[in-house]
């Protein structure tokens, strides 16, 4: 059984009568990347702040490495690295000086500071600009400096709030790569985002937030099965062949086969049927040109889920 590093049970944050976060329950296991996904204002950041002890918990409990962030925030904050949404640094100081300040706040011994700071800057690719003022940094560089801070801190858990927000595609790919490398070093990661597509590629498990509650939780394929029903979509491209649609439709495990264009078929199946589909096309006398499996995308899952949720609501209203 893997160790649980973050545990939230019935976590609730109320502002007056309105609940920003309402009874959220989830666990993050050691070494996994867990994504909190949802639109802006769904309660992701509030949840994170409660886990860090930076915001009062109205109800429910949170445990980070067994410590209660409301009671013993210093123990929590010593082990957790936090990268806030669009992180800021002291612009008039250099990158290294900014990290020096944090290092002293953390209490890293003076003898180790310099080495750990340089090593961290090296890992995120900022070693060359260590002595440049942060005021000259781009947004992507600031985010990377934020990650360097977590690396320097040697945190066992990294909590990243909207890490790719506002980055250009190249910068966000680099950042996700860094996040993966953090995981490879044994760091557990809790990240929040409203950019589903980007995040899908790095998360082991996700929780979809809506209006302060977790609507869905699990691995992306699991959610796909749950929400989209079919789960797997196989695309086939072939020349010629007789009666291909009917033959594909007859395959065991295929729910639906349609000819989406001349020489293009789309199968909705219960499992990965690429091999069977290929055999079938060849048996029908077709020349197979391309075969691909569409992973269920979070984007689809999300849109579909909230569409049906809204329809449900509309029905109730009527």
């Amino acid at each position: 059984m893997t160790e649980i590093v973050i545990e939230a049970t019935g976590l609730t944050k109320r502002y007056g009568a309105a609940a920003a976060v309402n009874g959220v329950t989830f666990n993050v296991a050691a070494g996994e990347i867990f994504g909190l996904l949802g639109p802006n204002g769904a309660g992701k950041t509030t949840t994170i702040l409660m886990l860090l002890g930076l915001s009062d918990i109205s109800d429910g409990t949170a445990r980070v490495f067994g410590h209660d962030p409301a009671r013993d925030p210093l123990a929590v904050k010593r082990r957790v690295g936090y990268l806030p949404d669009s992180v800021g640094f002291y612009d008039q100081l250099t990158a290294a000086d900014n990290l020096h300040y944090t290092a002293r706040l953390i209490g890293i011994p003076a003898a180790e500071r310099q080495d750990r700071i340089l090593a961290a800057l090296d890992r995120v690719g900022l070693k060359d600009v260590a002595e440049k003022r942060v005021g000259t940094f781009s947004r992507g560089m600031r985010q990377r400096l934020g990650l360097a801070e977590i690396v320097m801190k040697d945190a066992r858990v990294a909590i990243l709030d909207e890490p790719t927000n506002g980055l250009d595609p190249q910068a966000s790919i680099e950042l996700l790569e860094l996040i993966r490398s953090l995981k490879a070093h044994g760091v557990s990661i809790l990240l929040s985002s409203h950019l589903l597509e980007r995040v899908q590629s790095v998360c082991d498990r996700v929780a979809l937030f809506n209006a302060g509650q977790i609507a869905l939780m699990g691995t992306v394929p699991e959610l796909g099965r749950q929400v989209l029903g079919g789960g797997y979509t196989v695309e086939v491209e072939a020349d010629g062949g007789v009666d291909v649609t009917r033959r594909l439709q007859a395959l065991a495990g295929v729910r639906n086969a349609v000819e989406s264009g001349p020489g293009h078929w789309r199968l909705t199946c219960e499992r990965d049927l690429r091999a069977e589909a290929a055999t079938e096309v060849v048996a029908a006398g077709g020349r197979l040109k391309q075969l691909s499996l569409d992973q269920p995308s979070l984007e689809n899952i999300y849109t579909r889920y909230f569409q049906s949720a809204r329809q449900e609501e509309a029905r109730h209203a009527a």
Partner: protein
Amino acid sequence: MRREGSPWQGLGVVVLKELSDHLTSARMRVLEWLVVLTALAAVYAAITQVRDVTAQDPFLFLRLFTTAREPLPSFVSFLSFLVPLMAIGLGFDAVNGEHNRRTLSRILSQPIYRDALLFGKFLAGLATLTVSLVVLWLLLIGLGLIMLGVPPGGEEMGRAFIFLLVTIAYAGVWLALAMLFSVVFRSAATAALVTLGLWLFLTAIWPALAPAVAQAFVPAGDQATQVIAAQMLARLSPSTLFGETVLALLHPTTRTLGPVYLSQLQGAVMGAPLPLSQSVLVAWPQIVGLIAASILLFVASYVAFQRQEVRA
């Protein structure tokens, strides 16, 4: 529910960082030059005046602080005007500046309490002000020695030193006020304007307004009560408190800061100076008032800061 861990953790680090920020900031340099130049002008004027007029004064050195020569005001009035300006300049963006640079949540996610951040900022501001005031004070004493050629007596130095401490406490009040507004208002410009507005009101308008307010509430005819009420109201302003303390400390002949009945003056030798300890006693309520005001204002900003959301 008790928190675990020390609220002082990280305090020293915050103080040092803020101190170095203050001492290297352009804002600080401008303020210092402003203070040094104006104060020196006042002192120079005072010295020339003192040399002309009061050669026989036993407290010649203290005259440096209080003598004015038209059109310049005295060193003390310059200070009472410029010290708040400096303190407000250092404090008005203490907390909202961190918000606006989006550094607050990152710093607070390090293993320190908010206490350390706020108190560290206050201490660093106060230390900066102390450094500048001590420098100014030493400059003044040095100039006095050179230009007057008369060494100050021990009691004069004692009075001048206590005056320095009181000035630091006075600076602390305005620093705490500026920091309170830096917590309350998210925009630094708003915080600066509100603090400066309040400073102008308390310094320039309130002392003039207090007698009118007293007149409105105290029945006409009871003049003694009216005068006392007006004075009490005026003392709500730290500027009044500072002014009265300075009066008691730097004019040794001051026997009281409020109205007295004739019966209380029986046997008093008018115009004779009080010993230092008695002068301090006369001003003691004012001194305590200044210190209490800075503590109260700091506590208010502390409470506001603890309850504040850190998200940008």
